[in-house]
């Protein structure tokens, strides 16, 4: 069947959702904000009709959490300080450290996780572990030349910052939920969104923080 929404139905949904949005946002929008909220409601309604669940990617993937909703408004400009503070605070509260306090794993496994781009796509086998694909956006170990430039270079990260417990905790938390430190960053929240397991995050921390890791040689 052709997925279509009739004009009337779409308008109906839009009004309903815009109403709900107005209540959520406290009804005090400027005309431009009202317009934007109405388009947002139409967009969400349309998307729900335009995708189908496939493999591990259900329609709930379209639902936004607070961070995603706020950051959708600040894609090309940084969020205002108050918004950034709210996002970072909410995400910092979600960072969970491992119960046994062990932050460092095996950098060799971490390198494999950093290389692997598979994971969470509807075309991926959900039984296989996801990768982090760090190299998609960052230079890390110097022998890998196929790296992206979306994020900063992490070459010699541990060596430059210092191999301290404080820095290991920072790297753990940054990989776990990058939004805790940099609101509306492009970097996924690997722990908070259950992309990586605790064990995998340990291995990635080791890749960045183990003096023996090729990142630090």
């Amino acid at each position, binding site marked *: *069947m*052709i*997925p*279509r*929404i*009739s*004009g009337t139905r779409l308008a109906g949904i839009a009004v309903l959702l815009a109403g709900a949005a107005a209540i959520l946002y406290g009804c005090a929008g400027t005309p431009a904000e009202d317009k934007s909220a109405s*388009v*947002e409601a*139409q*967009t969400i309604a*349309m*998307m729900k*009709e*335009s*995708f*189908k*669940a*496939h493999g591990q*990617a*259900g*329609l709930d*993937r*379209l*639902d*936004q959490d607070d*961070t*995603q909703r706020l*950051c*959708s*408004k600040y*894609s*090309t400009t940084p969020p205002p300080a108050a918004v950034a503070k709210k996002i970072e605070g909410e995400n910092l509260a979600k960072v969970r450290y491992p119960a046994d306090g062990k932050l460092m794993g095996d950098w060799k496994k971490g390198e494999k996780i950093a*290389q692997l781009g598979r994971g*969470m*796509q*509807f*075309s991926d086998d959900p039984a296989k572990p996801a990768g982090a694909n760090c*190299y*998609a*956006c960052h230079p890390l170990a110097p022998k890998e*030349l*196929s*790296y*992206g*430039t*979306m994020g900063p270079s992490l070459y010699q990260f541990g060596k430059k910052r210092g191999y301290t417990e404080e820095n290991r905790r920072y790297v753990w938390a940054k990989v776990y939920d990058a*939004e805790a430190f940099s609101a509306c960053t*492009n970097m*996924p*929240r690997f722990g908070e*969104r*259950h*992309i990586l397991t605790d064990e995998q995050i340990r291995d990635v921390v080791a890749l960045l923080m183990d003096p023996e890791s090729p990142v630090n040689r």
Partner: protein
Amino acid sequence: MPRKLRSIPGAAAALALAVITVTLPIVPVPAAAQESVEKAIEQYRQDLQGGNPAELWEARGEEIWNTPRGPKHASFKSCDLGLGPGIVKGAYAQLPRYFPDAGRVLDLESRLVWCMVNQQGFTHAEATKVTFGKGSRKRSDLEALTAYVVAQSDGTKMNVSLADPHVRGMYEIGEKMFFYRAGTHDFACATCHGSDGKRIRLQDLPNLTKKADAQRAYTSWPAYRVSQGEVRTFQWRLHDCLRQQRFPDLIYGSDASIALTTYLAARANGAAYAGPGMKR
């Protein structure tokens, strides 16, 4: 410049070359490869002497266009892409647009499906059975037809009118969708396509929020994908981007796919359409 289909033997030779050269490296590209991939594609273009294997799809698409088909035994000569029944020249450069007979804004591909269903008598399932082809045993009529139609806009300036409120509405929704972050990875289109001079691994990313990049990107699709040996359409481009965004499966010809296309097509307005293109 109006485009003329090359002779079939010429295009066949081009495809033979395409098959030979299809082993071009795909991601992850080995060491020091960014430049060499571009060089390889450039060499490949030179070998084809300006030809593009997409011409084979164009030729097949033209044949399908002119052949009566379906339960109603109708050809696409009665299919109106916006400029009148059967008129293909320049039509793609003005799509998406609002079609009163369908009561919807449609892009080229959804309009082709509309004509197959409403004029040729196919069911929607039949018309969309093969949207994205896979080799000679699973060829897509929609890819062939799309290649044929878009080639008739080669050199035509993109001119998607937002005067119609339906089209304007779809543009606004498409824009929202472009910046809509969701899924396991918090990705929006803008995550990868919202800043200048970035790349994923070795793949350069156009900044689609900038006019020049948006124009260059949109006018080079659909394209012959050397790594896949197939012509890929704009619906394919969106579908595969959203797969990598970890979104669910974008339905072919769905309203959201058309809204996003409307946003991106209109942002290319003013640039000469230059497809089908050729990509790695």
